């Protein structure tokens, strides 16, 4: 349980901080990319952290001064986002992901190894200043769990021995090298997005162009009227791949044609849902496909400014996207007068700083505006009043990445890929106890059993299947009885769960569901934005109650209390984070009540099987 | 000897009698307090001491007396400047004066002079007692009025009304005895009760006049303002009635007046109804013969002391037994019971005497 407050800083030492010239210039350049100065706070803080290593009170004041906002606005962001260090980190900041998928993969063992090796606990720093250790939430590397992030580099597919070696190496002056595992594992008959991922050399503009890149965008701008594009997308039945599954075309249709304020597109690249790691792959390996989708979308809706809100942890993704943006600008695929059509489109990459809630569309908009990512009250919906007060479209990376293919091959083709009302394919992110975890692009209607036993090679170590989160950790769990459910939005909803973001977390019989529930609750406790009362206080309470179950100190009444506390949160908050926290816990309690009852008597929990 | 014996005797008696009466007060107070304590399952006063001797609490009355004497004398702001001070004296002096005619033994002979054992011997003695005793009520009434306090005034008024009601009965109830013995002289009355009735009973008033006796005792209680007739004081209703505003020595004078009148009234009861100084079945002559004159006198004094002692005790005893009357009950008893009964008693006595002695 986290008890340290992010607002408690280390004291500043030395002379008052000053930005370097280039940093000030960079900030001033950034100011031109946003309608308000405030929106520059997050990027400016990233720059400050790059310059000073961490954010002291003095640095906050400096940032406020340079950006031109009240210091409190900066402080609020620093307090809200976890990636801003309030005390100097070690030379190597070791971030161990302990979310469910990683825990299922043995992250606890890894963490213990690190603690033992460095002699520090989470949040601590070695005396020589070499290492600092943090337990962090999902790093979107679930298929290659457990994962450790050292500074900006991912070390995936770790083992306790592996981390030991790594730390020794680093301690002995070794160089930090990223070690990525294999993400894409399989695809169906007609891969749409993932075909890029398989092909080497696709990352650059040239590679993408070779595969017919940007032809559809050009065709759309040059030959199609915006309403036609919207109509076509509507016809394709493309549903948002971010979680809610809202039809993309319909969403675009809500945007008023004429608006006094500028319209905006916000690309939701804040992939934070535990169990989901598809967007990271797209961002890193085929950013141009997403960019083409952006151009098509903006043309269709009449948007001239787009922001790609990328998760702060995706440092590599950000580099890759920025590179793609630069290429696209150079090729006049973005910017003023695109390809001579007179269509202007400015696309800006905006890095988040570690807040799951910014994946919620209004939270994302708030964050983009330079505020803590606290979701807004709806109505008004973003389509009417969104970013900077203008009508705003918020779409997931994957959703946008489907657009070029839909334009190319037609909506009927797309519909044919999926099941009724759930057209197309989607990238399933399978993690946990399966033989071959990873990304699988399959038709929407693929049954869960097929996904696990055919595509993923069955359960790990041929263990028995126990439970599965079909759409990220916020979806209610499915049990063996539900194995034949189709993995599309409607079927899963009918089965009492949801398709969510496509993160399929499979749990086998070796895991303890109480521990799983505790971990899920812990995650939402960590990520609650602190705005609405039930979520702010309830998520922590849930974790505390579940923690007592895990510690086997719970009382008989606590089971009812747990259900009560979770139910009390549902549907009473501005956004659905409270529901996301309550639903999986409720479903686990409902479906695995026996395990909870067993935890009432003293004994030893198998925990995470380690 | 140039000074006549009777004069010396008169002076001695005039000094000794009031001193005796006043000295009885502390003893009575002590008896009252200890008696009431025992009646109520308490121990009573026992703390005042000389050295480690407490003398069974006897020192308390003396301590009280000292306290009364040394307390600050004060007068309430609007009290009457003269009557306020006069009232206590008006209470205590008449009650002492009434004692003057009470004989405590038969006449003695000193060097050929016949000397009565009362301060003075008056042929109309009983009339004198009533005459003097009724002045006391003036003191109470004046105290009530002069204090300028509503409770005091109420107490004074109550007292006045009570006295009017019961003084009448008091006088009437003894008439029977007086008729029988045919004298107003208290010594004569006592002497007359030395005979025997039917050769068995002493010829005491109580046997001749039982009804008269009862009425007289009731009237005496009323006269002494003692429970159950202490309405003028009525602590629970009138704070302390007529003496609410009195403290220190002035208060103690009211206190003394009450106890002295108790002594007087007890003596009257004894003299009128219990043969006074008569030792039962022993006439003065007989005692003279057996004990000599000194012995006879002492035994008569002792007999008298026992008698009044009993009635004093009765006063105390009744006080700790009976509750106070309500005012209307008091009046009803006085006017509707005691007075008619007394009148009937006189009538019957007179008739009997008339029949017995012939017309």
């Amino acid at each position, binding site marked *: 349980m986290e008890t340290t407050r992010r607002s408690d800083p280390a004291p500043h030492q030395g002379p008052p901080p000053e930005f370097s010239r280039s940093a000030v210039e960079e900030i001033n350049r950034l100011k031109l990319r946003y309608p*308000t100065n405030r929106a520059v706070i997050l990027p400016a803080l990233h720059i400050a952290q790059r310059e000073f290593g961490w954010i002291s*009170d003095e640095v906050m004041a400096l940032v406020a001064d340079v950006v031109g906002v009240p210091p409190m606005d900066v402080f*609020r962001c620093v*307090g809200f986002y976890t990636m801003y260090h309030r005390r100097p980190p070690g030379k190597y900041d070791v971030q161990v992901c302990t979310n469910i998928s990683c825990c299922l993969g043995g992250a606890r063992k890894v963490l213990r190894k690190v603690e033992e090796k460095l002699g520090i606990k989470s949040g601590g720093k070695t005396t020589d200043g070499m290492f600092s250790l943090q337990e962090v939430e999902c790093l979107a590397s679930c298929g290659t769990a457990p994962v450790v992030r050292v500074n900006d580099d991912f070390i995936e597919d770790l083992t306790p021995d592996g981390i030991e070696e790594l730390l020794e190496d680093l301690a002995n002056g070794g160089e930090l090298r990223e070690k990525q595992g294999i993400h894409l594992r399989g695809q169906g008959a007609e891969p749409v997005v993932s075909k890029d991922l398989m092909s080497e050399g696709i990352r650059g503009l040239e590679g993408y162009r070779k595969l017919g890149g940007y032809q559809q965008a050009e065709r759309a701008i040059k030959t199609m009227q915006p309403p036609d594009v919207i109509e076509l997308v509507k016809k394709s039945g493309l549903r948002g791949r971010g979680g809610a599954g809202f039809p993309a075309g319909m969403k675009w249709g809500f945007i008023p044609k004429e608006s006094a304020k500028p319209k905006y597109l916000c690309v939701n690249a804040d992939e934070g849902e535990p169990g989901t790691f598809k967007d990271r792959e797209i961002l890193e390996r085929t950013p141009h496909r997403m960019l083409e989708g952006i151009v098509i979308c903006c043309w269709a809706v009449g948007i001239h400014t787009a922001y790609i809100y990328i998760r702060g942890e995706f440092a590599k993704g950000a580099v890759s996207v920025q590179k793609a943006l630069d290429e696209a600008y150079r090729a006049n695929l973005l910017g003023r007068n695109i390809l001579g059509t007179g269509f202007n489109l400015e696309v800006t990459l905006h890095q988040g700083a570690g807040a799951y809630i910014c994946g919620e569309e209004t939270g994302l908009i708030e964050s983009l505006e330079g505020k803590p990512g606290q979701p807004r009250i709806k*109505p008004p919906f973003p389509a009417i009043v969104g970013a900077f007060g203008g009508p705003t479209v918020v779409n997931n990376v994957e959703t946008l990445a489907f657009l070029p293919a839909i334009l190319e091959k037609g909506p009927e083709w797309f519909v044919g890929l999926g099941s009724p009302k759930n057209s197309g394919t989607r990238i399933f992110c399978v993690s946990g106890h399966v033989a071959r975890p990873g990304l699988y692009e399959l038709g929407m209607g693929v049954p869960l059993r097929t996904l696990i036993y055919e595509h993923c090679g069955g359960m790990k170590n041929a263990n028995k299947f126990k439970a599965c989160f079909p759409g990220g950790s916020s979806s209610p769990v499915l049990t063996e009885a539900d194995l034949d459910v189709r993995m599309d939005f409607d079927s899963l909803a009918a089965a009492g769960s949801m398709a969510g973001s496509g993160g399929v977390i499979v749990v086998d019989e070796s895991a303890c569901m109480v521990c799983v529930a505790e971990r899920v609750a812990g995650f939402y406790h960590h990520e609650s*934005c602190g705005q609405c009362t039930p979520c702010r*206080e309830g998520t*922590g*309470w849930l974790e505390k109650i579940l923690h007592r179950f895990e510690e086997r100190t719970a009382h008989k009444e606590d089971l009812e209390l747990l259900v009560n506390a979770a139910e009390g949160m549902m549907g009473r908050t501005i956004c659905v984070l409270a529901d996301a926290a309550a639903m999986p816990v409720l479903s686990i309690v409902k479906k695995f009540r026996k395990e909870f009852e067993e935890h009432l008597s003293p004994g030893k929990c198998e925990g995470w099987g380690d | 000897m140039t000074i006549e014996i009777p004069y010396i005797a008169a002076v001695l008696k005039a000094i000794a009698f009031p001193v005796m009466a006043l000295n009885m007060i502390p003893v009575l107070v002590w008896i009252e307090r200890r008696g009431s304590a025992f009646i109520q399952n308490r121990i009573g006063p026992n703390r005042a001491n000389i050295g480690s001797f407490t003398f069974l609490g006897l020192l308390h009355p003396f301590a009280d007396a000292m306290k009364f004497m040394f307390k600050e004398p004060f007068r309430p702001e609007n009290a009457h400047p003269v009557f306020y001070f006069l009232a206590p004296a008006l209470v205590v002096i008449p009650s002492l004066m009434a004692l003057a005619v009470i004989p405590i033994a038969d006449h003695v002979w000193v060097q050929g002079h016949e000397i009565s054992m009362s301060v003075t011997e008056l042929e109309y003695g009983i009339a004198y007692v009533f005459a003097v005793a009724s002045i006391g009520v003036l003191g109470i009434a004046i105290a009530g009025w002069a204090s300028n306090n509503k409770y005091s005034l109420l107490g004074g008024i109550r007292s006045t009304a009570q006295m009017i009601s019961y003084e009448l009965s008091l006088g009437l109830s003894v008439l029977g005895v007086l008729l029988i013995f045919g004298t107003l002289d208290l010594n004569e009355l006592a002497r007359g009760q030395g005979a025997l009735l039917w050769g068995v009973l002493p010829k005491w008033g109580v046997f001749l006049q039982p009804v008269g006796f009862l009425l007289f005792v009731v009237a005496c209680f009323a006269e002494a303002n003692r429970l159950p007739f202490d309405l003028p004081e009525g602590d629970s209703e009138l704070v302390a009635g007529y003496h609410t505003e009195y403290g220190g020595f002035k208060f103690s004078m009211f206190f003394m007046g009450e106890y002295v009148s108790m002594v007087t009234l007890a003596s009257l009861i004894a003299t009128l109804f219990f043969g006074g100084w008569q030792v039962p079945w022993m006439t003065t002559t007989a005692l003279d013969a057996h004990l000599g004159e000194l012995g006879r006198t002492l035994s008569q004094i002792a007999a008298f002391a026992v008698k009044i002692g009993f009635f004093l005790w009765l006063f105390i005893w009744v006080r700790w037994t009976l509750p106070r009357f309500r005012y209307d009950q008091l009046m009803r008893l006085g006017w509707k019971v005691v007075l008619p009964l007394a009148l009937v008693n006189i009538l019957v006595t007179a008739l009997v005497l008339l029949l017995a002695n012939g017309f």
Partner: protein
Amino acid sequence: MPKLTVDGRPVEVEAGQTVMNAAEKLGIEIPRFCYHSKLPVAGNCRMCLVEVEKMPKLTTSCTTPATEGMVVLTKSPKVKEGQKAVLEYLLINHPLDCPVCDKAGECDLQDQYFAFSSTPSRMIDQKVHKPKRIELGPTIKLDQERCVLCTRCVRFLEVYAHDHSLGTVNRGDRAILTVFPGRPLDNIYSLNTVDLCPVGALTSKDFRFKKRVWFLKNADSVCTFCSNQCSTVVQHDEGTIYRILPRENEKVNGPWMCDTGRLEYRFINAEERVKCPMVRRDEGQERTTWREAMEAVGAAFKAAGSRAAGLASPRMTNESLFAFAKLFVETLGSKLAGFVKADAGLVEGAPADDFLIKADKNPNTRGAEEIFAAWGVEVDGARSVLEAAEGGKLAALLVMDQALLERVPNRERWLKALAKVKFVAVASLAENELTRLAHVVLPLASWAEEEGTYTRFDGLVQRSWRAVPPRGEAKDALGLLSQVAVAAGKQALPLVAEAVFKALVAKVRCFGSLTYAAIGKQGAKAGSGAATHKVEIVNLAKDKGAGGAEARTW
């Protein structure tokens, strides 16, 4: 104009109004923490949940626009359960230190817990602990544990005081309200946040621990710090004033008030006040009795005849000013009377702003002008008095309010001139230069110790009730003036404020036909129809939508 039903009762509200507004219109109470009618809507406390037909979930009434045909339930079992749940969550980490919390007794959380939950806590785990007793600034202490993060204070400061020093930091149950490190909350309107705080998180340092609120008695009053004349409630106990709170008055101050006005009670409680009359003898001022003091005043004024003069203060009530003018013009027959206007430039403390504080620090300048004009006293009467004094023509002078000369530019000239007057009587609250040169100092009651009315700069007449009895032997202005009249051998003046006001209305035209009853608690204008100052309601869309502009204008 959408029509809807709330709890089965039909109601029609203006377009754009919320369900909360509709319920309020019907007098239906909906619990809330973050909602405040004068602040942008935040919708974060989730306490005002209601059930709306055809909506699957409970919805917050403060954010839901009222629409045509809506059927709202505010007391259904579902709503009650929701309210109970929200209260339970609120209390999970809220410290139960009500006994030492200054808010206890007027705490929304306490009240609403008893009204809408009253169930014992089921929380047995360790609470989240946060810093307590934080000095937020010169006026306020913060308890972060008690804070329910409703952000009312943040919104108030941003919207009304344009102050961005408060904010919520961190997330989840670690979230706290705080200021930027090293930049305290120092704002002339800061104490409004204490009123706004629905719990005991923000406490006024001035009032902190002075008194439990349930001991306090209220007296409606008017702030005399400046000519804005905020409606106030004076809270007092046993003759001592403990705090002043704003009283909601749409025509004047809304529910707000400035800190200076709130702390203005201190001099009333002060020990240094003049408590009994004083006479100047050889070695300075000596205490004396009213009788002696008035004999001296009487003798002087009798001897002075028409060479008597008076100086009134625009801090006095209309009634006192009227009695003052009557005393000099009618009773004493002297036309040498006037009141001293303050010079805004010389006033210490906050200058005027566009919110509440006005430049003229005298509450009743307009009333004084109107009343003196009605009595035929020349507008610049004070100047005549000054000139007469300088010329040594004055034999007796009565000065009301010792602070009169503290705010005039030609102060030295005044003091020099007054020193030439044969006899100066000063009715005073405290000692200063003016009282030191007085021959007689008379203790005067403060505004909280007397009854009366004040006329605001826009013509609104407001009533102020007596809160506490005058300190020591002080007398209110009416009583004091009457005594002067009697001492000078004339007829006494009326002492009851209401009676004086009746006479005033009869004499002074511009008061129309006002009565105390008509003025009431909210004040009234003699002539109707004039526009009144209004506090604007800022709505959410305006605020959040204008995010950019807001940051730039800072």
